[in-house]
């Protein structure tokens, strides 16, 4: 399902990261980077919530808005019961819609924000997502200090929080359309190979977006997938060609861009709900404002992994949501 929007704009964004992202190749594009992973908090869960709070503070500062000006918040993260979002938003004035689409939460949030703006009661929506490497390790894998050797295909959950102000005011980047993804089961059950889990979902969403809009891949200056990592990226390219006969040109993956894969200990690249929007709001928007990129299709990908289901020998379903972003003329 592809929804077209005539008057939806991402007016302003803010980005907060942990030390690894700050020291990575895109470090200069972020608003704030912490030098440690606790950010002055006592545990990983509080630290994760702080990422959203900081991103909101910076967004308010940049736009001059206060929390009383916002009509609706939409937020997603990886923690159980969306703890990071829920604890961050206690104290905010506007209602909150909490969403879970794993690492595809960012684009789902933008699509829901755009839909909400059709209502005249809603004028300003703020979308946030966050992820914290150590909080995710603790919840999905092993205790942080355990570490444990991992295969090369493992992705490294990015630490960061982002916020985006979406409204009908013609300013910033235009959100032209959104394609809501289907749940796709790739029959892969390897939790250390999320790129392979998510590639078919990304392919399906890209294909249906192009079908629905009648566009070719060349329409976009850049097609960006969420967090497939260096191996998942190659799998997607070949799968897209064999399954749909589409050769991906002008294509990149945000998981490959966020870190320096040669120098940083991040295995196959970055992942996490914050990975795609960090790269997009930080680096891609800056390039778009310089008019180096005019049309970008952002396809955030999420592995809908549930540890109990994986232990029960089930494969991992995946989902991808896409948003089409355009520079204002």
């Amino acid at each position, binding site marked *: 399902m592809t929804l077209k929007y005539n008057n939806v704009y991402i007016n302003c964004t803010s980005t907060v990261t942990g030390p690894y992202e700050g020291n990575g190749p895109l470090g200069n594009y972020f608003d704030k980077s912490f030098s440690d992973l606790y950010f002055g908090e006592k545990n990983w869960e509080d630290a994760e919530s702080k990422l959203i709070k900081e991103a909101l503070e910076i967004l308010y500062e940049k736009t001059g808005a206060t929390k009383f000006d916002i009509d609706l918040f939409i937020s997603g993260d990886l923690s159980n019961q969306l703890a990071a979002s829920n604890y961050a938003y206690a104290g905010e004035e506007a209602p909150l819609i909490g969403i879970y689409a794993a690492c595809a939460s960012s684009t789902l949030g933008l699509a829901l924000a755009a839909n909400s703006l059709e209502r005249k009661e809603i004028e300003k929506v703020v979308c946030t997502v966050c992820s914290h490497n150590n909080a995710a390790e603790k919840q999905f894998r092993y*205790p*942080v200090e*355990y570490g*444990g050797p991992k295969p090369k295909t493992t992705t490294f959950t990015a630490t960061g929080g982002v916020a985006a102000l979406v409204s009908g005011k013609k300013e910033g980047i235009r959100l032209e359309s959104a394609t809501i993804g289907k749940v796709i089961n*790739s029959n892969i059950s390897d939790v250390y190979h999320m790129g392979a889990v998510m590639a078919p979902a990304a392919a399906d969403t890209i294909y249906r977006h192009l079908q629905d809009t009648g566009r070719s891949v060349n329409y976009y200056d850049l097609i960006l997938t969420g967090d497939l990592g260096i191996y998942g990226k190659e*799998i997607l390219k070949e*799968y897209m060609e*064999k399954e749909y006969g589409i050769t991906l040109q002008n294509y990149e993956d945000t998981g490959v861009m966020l870190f320096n894969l040669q120098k940083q200990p991040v295995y196959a690249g970055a992942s996490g709900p914050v990975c795609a929007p960090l790269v997009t709001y930080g680096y891609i928007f800056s390039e778009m404002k310089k008019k180096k990129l005019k049309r970008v299709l952002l396809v955030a990908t999420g592995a809908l992994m549930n540890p109990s289901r994986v232990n029960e020998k089930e494969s991992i379903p995946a989902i991808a949501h896409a948003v089409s972003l355009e520079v204002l003329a």
Partner: protein
Amino acid sequence: MEKKKYEEIVDKHTPSENIVVNALTAFTIGGIMGIIGQALIDFYSYYLTIPTKEATVCMIVTLIFISCLLTSLGFFDKIVNFCKCGLIVPITGFAHATMSAALEYRKEGFISGLGSNMLKISGAVIIFGVVSAWTFSLIRMLLGVI
């Protein structure tokens, strides 16, 4: 696309792990751990005149203490990542798994956090250690009878 065809694409773009290097690393480090263990037993029995049987226990306690200390100081995970099964299989791996879980869940309280989660990874080692010890003792006993 069929499951098998997709698996072919995935396999093509999945890097192979360097099994030979990993195995050699684990073999060498595991061997060094054995030498260290033996040296500790010799030290305790020769210099402190502890009987060999008790010296073995002292050696194990020493290795557990060192692993736990290094885990708490925050860099044993990096050493384990390099040494792999050379440090995971010996008692050092057990100590590291228990200590790292204890550190992680301490913040959730002494009973609900530390107490219930400390053996999260290493619990399986205890359970199946006891089960296999019981099974082999049984086999040994039956063979002895026959």
